[in-house]
C-alpha cells in the first residue's frame, strides 16, 4: 500500500534521519521525498510503499506519530488514495 507521510513543525537537527530510520526498521520503502524549511518551519512530504512491511498500517502510523510528538512535530500518515481522490479526476 502506498502512503504519504507528512511532517510539519519547528526545524531541528535529525528529523529526516529519525523518520527514515523508523521506515527502514519497518521495511517501509521511501519512493520520494520533498522537504523545505521556510521561516524556521520544517515541512516534509514522503511517499512510501508499505507492502513489504510485516507490521500493519496502524502500527507503523502510530510509531511515526509518537516519534513526531517526541520531537514536537505534527506527523500524519495517510493512504495515498485520499489525496488522489480529492485532487485528481
Amino acid at each position, binding site marked *: 500500500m502506498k502512503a*504519504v507521510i*507528512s511532517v*510539519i513543525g519547528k526545524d531541528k537537527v535529525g528529523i529526516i534521519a529519525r523518520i527514515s530510520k523508523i521506515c527502514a526498521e519497518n521495511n517501509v520503502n521511501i519512493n*520520494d521525498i*520533498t522537504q*523545505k524549511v521556510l521561516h524556521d518551519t520544517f*515541512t516534509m*512530504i514522503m511517499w512510501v510503499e508499505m507492502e513489504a512491511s510485516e507490521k500493519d*498500517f*496502524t502500527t507503523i*502510523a502510530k510509531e511515526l506519530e509518537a516519534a513526531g510528538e517526541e520531537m514536537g512535530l*505534527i506527523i*500524519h*500518515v*495517510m*493512504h*495515498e*488514495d*485520499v*489525496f*488522489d*481522490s*480529492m*485532487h*485528481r479526476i
Partner: protein
Amino acid sequence: MLRRSEILETIKMIDEQHLDIRTITMGISLLDCVDRDVDAFCDRVYEKITRLAGNLVQTGDEIARTYGIPIINKRVSVTPIALVTPGYSVEDMVKVAKTLEKAAIACGINFIGGYSALVHKAATPSDINLIQSLPVALKETSRVCSSINVATTKAGINLDAIDLMGKIIRECAEATAEEDSIGCAKLVVFANVPEDNPFMAGAFHGVGEGDCVINVGVSGPGVVSSAIRKHPDANITEVADIVKKTAFKITRMGQMVANEACKRLNVPFGIVDLSLAPTPAVGDSVAHILEEMGLERCGTHGTTACLALLNDAVNKGGTMASSHVGGLSGAFIPVSEDAGMIEAAQLGTLTLDKLEAMTAVCSVGLDMIAIPGDTPASTISAIIADEISIGVINNKTTAVRVIPAIGKDVGDSVAFGGLLGEAPIMPIHRESSEKFISRGGRIPAPIHSLRN
C-alpha cells in the same frame, strides 16, 4: 504525481478546517422481519441489525485510521417502523423502540433512525399508534430517532396529521422536560421526505431500497468558509466557483470513503449526501460562510440570497464528484448546532420568520429551534404547516424540528451537549392559529403535481 501544495491543502482541511465525513449510515430493511407477534418481530429485528451492523463502527474507525479522515458518526436507519408493525398497540410500539435502542447499544452506534410513519395522505392504525407512542418511546430511549412525513407534492398536506403532531411535540417536550425537552430533538416532521437520507434525526430506510445499503453524508462548512476567506475581493460569480470547487473536493473524499466502506462491509453503495452540516465547534458554521460572503451577521437582509448561492454551488460541485447523490443534499441550518446561528439568534438578527424564508432555498427546514415552553400545540402545528407548504409548493424536502422548552421563555436557552449543541429560545408570534389548524382535512396537492 501529487503536488506538495495539494497534500498540504488536504491536511489543512482536516486539521484546521474541520473537514470530516459526518456519517456512514447503514440502511437496513426490516420488511422480512414482519410478524403479527411483537416479541417475534423484536427478536428478528435485533438479530438482523446486530448481524449486519455489528462491524459498522469498527470498520468506520479502521477507514478513518487508514485514510486519516475523521468519520464522526456511524449510524443505522431502518424501514419506517409503522410499515412493519401490523395491528400493534401503543405499548407494542414502545417495545419496538426499546428493541431498536438495544440493537443500537449492541452495535455501539449513537443514533438509529426509522421509528417513523409516512402519513402524507392519511394514517393507518399502526401509523397512529406509532405517533401516539412517541412521548413515551422518545423518553425511554436515548438513541432512537423518529420522523413523520405529513405531506408530499403529489399527495398534498395532511392537516389532521399536522394537528396531531403539534400535540405530540408538546407531549414529547413535557415528557422530557427535565432534560431540556430533548425528546423533541429526536423527532422531525417532514414534507417530501427522502428515502435514503443518512442524517439524523430524519434518516430511515425507504421501501424502494434494497435489503442493506451504505449512505454517506459529507460535511465541511469550515473548508468552504476558509476557501472564500482567501478571496476577499472576488465577485459573486467567482465566489460561486470557489464553493463549487471546494464542494467537489469534499465530495470526492466522501465518495472514496463510501466505496471503501461498501467494499469492507460487502454492502452495496447507495448515495452520497452533499450536505454542509455544521457543528457547534468554532470554524464549522454555515452561518459563518454566509458572513464570509459579505453579511455583517447571518439573518440580515441578503441572507437568503447568499444561502441560495451556497446551496446551489455545493450541489453543482458535489454532483460531479459522486456517482449517486441523494438524501437531503444541501446546506443545513440547525440553529443549536451552528455557532454562528446561535450567536445571530441570541442577538435577535436571526428570527424564526427569516429562518423560514431561508428554508425555501436550502435543504431541511426549521431545524433545532427552541421556542417558548408555553407555545400552544396549535401554534406548533401552524409553524409546521407553514414550513411544510414551502416544501410542497417548491417540490423539495422541508422539515421541522422545534423544541418547546418547557418552563423556559425568550432570553433562556437549552443545552443538549455534543453535536446537538445549545439553542437560545426564539420568540414566536403570539396570535392564535387555533381555528385554522382545528379545521382538519387535507390541503390539496398543488396544480404542478399533475405532470403526467
